[in-house]
């Protein structure tokens, strides 16, 4: 049941990359604002997954200390990139045409993809299944960002 729930969450997040804000306006200002909102929402979803993953690995700190030491910097790096992307989106929203918000989002999805947080020499073999659940939403949100705003995205 838990794995079915994880699958549902993943499918919802990934499938809703096409659930754009339904504006029929041709006003460039409105279209741009809706696009920035899409990006901000995607970034928020990623941050939720990131926070959830961070909370999850905290609970493994004593039982899997090597894994915690290995993966915690990865999450902190993603958090830093998230803050950069957030600042860049704000700048773009405020009219800074040089603000490369797509690049900032791509940096997040690229950094997230460089590591598979579920692969490690865990002391307890059952830990991997738990870790997959812990990182499910983060991985899905990162894939959604890559699909919508990554290299070749809109």
């Amino acid at each position, binding site marked *: *049941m*838990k794995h079915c*729930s994880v699958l*549902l*969450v993943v499918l*919802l*997040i990934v499938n*809703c*990359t096409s*659930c*754009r*804000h*339904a*504006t*029929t*306006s041709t*006003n460039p*200002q*409105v279209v741009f*604002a*809706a696009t*920035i*909102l899409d990006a*901000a*929402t*995607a*970034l*928020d*979803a*990623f*941050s*939720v*997954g*990131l*926070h*959830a993953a*961070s*909370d*999850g690995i*905290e609970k493994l700190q004593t039982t899997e200390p090597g894994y915690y030491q290995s993966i*915690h910097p990865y*999450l*902190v790096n*993603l*958090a*830093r990139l*998230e*803050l950069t992307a*957030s600042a860049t*989106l*704000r700048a773009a*929203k405020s009219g800074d045409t040089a603000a490369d918000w797509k690049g900032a989002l791509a940096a997040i999805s690229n950094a997230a993809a460089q590591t598979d947080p579920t692969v490690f020499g865990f002391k307890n073999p059952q830990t991997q299944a738990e870790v997959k659940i812990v990182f499910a*939403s983060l991985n899905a*949100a990162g894939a*959604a960002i890559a699909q919508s705003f990554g290299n070749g995205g809109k």
Partner: protein
Amino acid sequence: MASKTTGTLNLISILIGLFGDFEPKLVHAISGLIHGNPRQAGETGVQYLIRINSLTDAALADADANAKAVMGS
């Protein structure tokens, strides 16, 4: 925070009930992705623009809070 459809939130809450501490924030994130923010009946273009800009600010504030929580852990 943006408003969400209660019915869908409840459904999602039930379906991902086993997430424990992660559930409330995850529900919020998923609902935002699903529903989008179409222009409401009678809403002028300017009003729509103001509303979605406000939603953007809320999403970014939430994202920052989550990121800072991770960095502080």
